[in-house]
């Protein structure tokens, strides 16, 4: 009843001599949006990849609805199918149209019938405002459009949660808004989301919690209001001020 949707326990990850993650734990309940912030190189993206095992952690456990994702006998493909992942550089399949990019998951992974998968794909494309681009190839779409297709691709799998790895960092400033709009809409509809992002407008408007990481550990976490107005650690305050200035977005 009270099991969190996602439970991450004591994740460690080392690349060579560098310990990127040094024991990170957190929980996510259904419908929550959590935003990870922190200087680059503090392991935020690695942490997201540890959640769906794209990067297996050296130590620590991840549980999705009580099922251990990190267990060596877990059916990782089935678990990944229920965890959406949105990449910084989109990674749309270059040889497929927008529609095929979205329908390939349902048709190849969950074995949905072709027509059904296509109908689903079209519905998801419409949801992100790209119904008219169904037959365009990735190279024919703007960065913002590509990222929206990749969100649709994740949505078509009926994910239990979606991980966003700096979804707007590769975008021209004028294209960021369209992607954030989709994400805000999703959060409001109750999608569970973990986002690595420095878009503080987004964090303020929909995040239940901001998690500040530095040097591979969580320094502080709390609701946006508290984190912005009354951070417990000096570093948190400094960092939030800096990125708020940098991104020029204080309110939304």
């Amino acid at each position, binding site marked *: 009843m009270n099991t969190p949707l996602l439970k991450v326990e004591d994740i460690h990850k080392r690349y060579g001599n560098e310990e990127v993650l040094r024991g990170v734990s957190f929980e996510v309940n259904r419908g929550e949006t959590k935003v990870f912030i922190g200087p680059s190189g503090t392991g935020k993206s690695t942490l997201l990849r540890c959640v*769906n095992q*794209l990067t297996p952690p050296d130590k620590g456990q991840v549980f999705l609805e009580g099922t251990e994702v990190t267990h060596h006998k877990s059916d990782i*493909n*089935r*678990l*990944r*199918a*229920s*965890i959406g*992942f949105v*990449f910084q*550089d989109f*990674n*749309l*399949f*270059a*040889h497929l149209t927008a529609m095929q990019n979205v329908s*390939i*998951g349902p048709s*190849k*992974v*969950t074995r949905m019938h072709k027509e059904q998968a296509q109908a689903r794909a079209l519905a998801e494309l419409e949801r992100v405002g790209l119904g008219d681009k169904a037959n365009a*190839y*990735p*190279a*024919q779409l703007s960065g913002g459009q590509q990222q929206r297709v*990749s969100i649709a*691709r994740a949505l078509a*799998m009926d994910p239990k949660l979606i991980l966003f790895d700096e979804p707007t960092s590769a975008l021209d400033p004028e294209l960021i808004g369209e992607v954030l709009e989709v994400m805000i809409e999703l959060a409001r509809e109750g999608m569970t989301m973990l986002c690595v992002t420095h878009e503080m407008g987004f964090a303020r408007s929909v995040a239940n919690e901001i998690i500040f990481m530095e040097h591979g550990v969580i320094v502080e976490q709390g609701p946006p209001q508290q984190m912005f107005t009354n951070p417990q650690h000096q570093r948190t305050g400094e960092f939030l001020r800096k990125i708020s200035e940098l991104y020029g977005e204080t309110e939304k």
Partner: protein
Amino acid sequence: MLLKAALLNVELLLSLLAVGFVVGTIVAVLQVYGGRVLGVLAFVFEWVFRSIPPLVLLFLVYFGPERFGLSISRFLSATIALGLCSSGYQSQIFRGAIQSISSGQMMAARALGMSRTCAIASVILPQALRLSIPGWSNEFSGVMKDTTLAYVVGYNELLRSARAIMDRHYDAAMLSFLTVAIIFLVLTYTGNRALGWLEERTRIPGLQVAGWSEEGHS
């Protein structure tokens, strides 16, 4: 008579290309994704079949089984020997294409829940094979000519037929060899045109090896 023999070359060409394609694709995939053991095996395979001269391999495949009392048809021995040679070369064309695909493609496929095999089959290879067409048409022209090597095991292909004409009418020798040359010119041209058409047909915006070209030119 020569045209009829040319059909035998085409037949051999198609079957050896098919062997080379299937084996070459498998070897390329194993070299990139096979892990240590399979990767080394694939490397050894490729090394062996790219090193042995096709003619030597042809003799080995044709005469080898005889030592054990087995007989192998001329066509089959040529298909196997030349097909394996070609697979070594084809594997390197495919490997280069596979490695040119960004690792994000595999990652995105795995993140959706696809198995590795499924990701290779439905994401990596469809892109890599498209990118391989230009390099592959080079290999195509090469093995087209190699089909005449089947001459040595007595396969009645084009060159052997021309040779037979020479034996009967010495005066017609030059004419028949020239005809052979012209038939190869035509075959190579036709084949390359067909591959160009295939490349055009399967082209996807944003997925090609072509360099920069001005809009409207190609």
